[in-house]
């Protein structure tokens, strides 16, 4: 399955991925209207360690703790993609408690949200990857380490 991976070496720390993600998931067609002067809730975020920056988003684990731990049965795996049913989520954040990567966060309504690979929003492919100016985020198939 194709997943989103980050290449620390190329990340400039420009945070464009966060804006592109928030826009792609906003359901709006105008980026300015979607993001300007509003708190944004991206599903990818940039972290910094000394002078290194890198993007973190859902790893779509093969055996995800969030799915097993969700108290509402709102998280499931559909064709390898870990998805949150926002209408069932009550915002208890047990998924935040267990995600080993810190990749799940509450969204604007309090329901938890995370990267779902832009497969169902208007972007159709990961917006963070598409908009990364330095190809520091890629969307590709990688083999499991033996």
């Amino acid at each position, binding site marked *: 399955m194709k997943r989103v991976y980050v290449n620390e070496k190329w990340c400039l720390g420009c945070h464009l991925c966060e804006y592109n993600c928030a826009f792609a998931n906003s359901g709006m067609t105008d980026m300015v209207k979607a993001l300007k002067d509003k708190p944004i809730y991206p599903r990818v975020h940039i972290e910094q360690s000394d002078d290194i920056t890198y993007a973190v988003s859902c790893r779509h684990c093969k055996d995800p*703790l969030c799915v097993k731990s969700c108290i509402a049965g709102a998280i499931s795996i559909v064709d390898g993609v870990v998805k949150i049913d926002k209408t069932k989520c009550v915002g208890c*954040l047990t998924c935040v408690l267990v995600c080993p990567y*810190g990749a799940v966060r509450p969204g604007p309504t309090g329901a938890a949200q995370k990267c779902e690979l832009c497969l169902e929003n208007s972007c159709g492919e990961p917006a963070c990857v598409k908009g990364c100016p330095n190809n520091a985020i890629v969307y590709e198939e990688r083999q499991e380490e033996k």
Partner: protein
Amino acid sequence: MSKFVIIGNGVAAAGCIEGIRSIDKESEITVISAEKHPVYSRPLISYYLEGKTTLEKMNYRSEDFYEKNKAELVYASAEKIDLKKGEVAFGSKKTKFDKLCIAAGSSPFVPPMDGLDSVKEKFTFMTMDDSLALEKALKKDSRVLIVGAGLIGLKCAEGILERVGSVTVVDLADRVLSSILDNECAAVMQKHLESKGMKFLLSDSVAKLETDKAVMKSGKTVEFDVLVLAVGVRANTQLAKDAGAEVNRGIIIDTKMQTTLENVYAAGDCTEGYDSSIDANRVLAILPNAYMQGFCAGVNMAGGDSSITNAIPMNSIGFFGLHCTSAGSYFAQGEGEVYEEKSCGGIKRLYIKDNKLTGYIIIGDVTGAGIYTRIIREKTDLSGVNIDKLKNNATLAMFLPETRRKMLGGVV
């Protein structure tokens, strides 16, 4: 072909069904459910009262869950396990099993209380039916007295606060949420709850009930219309005990979820399994544990090989928008380093000892908390972790670059 029977129909049972089906697609599964509902999310009963979910959305799995998994669901109370015959008796019927999973959950513990019989509107708060019954008794001006300031009592209080006149919570402990919070964090949470209108009587207990009045040990009196008993829960162990299984505070299970009886497994709130944070067995009555234990039991029942060796206590709970996550175990002052950071309306406390993070509590911004939970679960040696960064923020920046690149670079 084997025949599988599951006693209980909560989240552990759902996990067991899915665990069995991950290995064996065909063998017969019978689920014996004392509650007349398909599996639902028990912790959501307070969210239901608060109007944050509906009875339909509380279904833990899709409508076709049993059909899709070829599981027969029977609404009855399991009465007896006959090991010699390999049978479970329920109602006037019996069913054979090759492998059995006991996922019987727990029951509210109601302590003997002087005058309890005189109280008309009294409830426990554990099941969907409890929640619906309580809802019927609530009126706009009801004065509600909740006995127990633990997870169940306080979630109940949150769920009903806006729907009633007043909510008073009494607890024998000197702090709220005493099973998951230390003194410092409990004080922060109590202050928040009081700011929303809850009243507390701590280090106190009900000495006597007189119809609509509770007299406390301290001599104080509280008048009420509705009484909720949320003192605690007890694992349902009787069936297992009668069948000869070793039982302590829960049904004793090994890391493969097997009881001390052959072909009999157990999972969820009725069990006492291995807690790696204290290196001993303990009842870990939390939902993630119930699902994982159920799944693990199911895999082993179906002939697979699964074990859980890294279970730890962990909780995520929020009240009126203020979130709290906690995990692991805490130690007494002086036994290690406790790092504390206070933020606007919140607090973070990290328990560090022998170069390990043993436990943590965060109230407020819980972003990334799972990374702390991870290093407790994995017993990560902190020599490979930047301690200053760990204290500062729960991000992957605390790890060595090569460790982090491995985490983010492959299929996990």
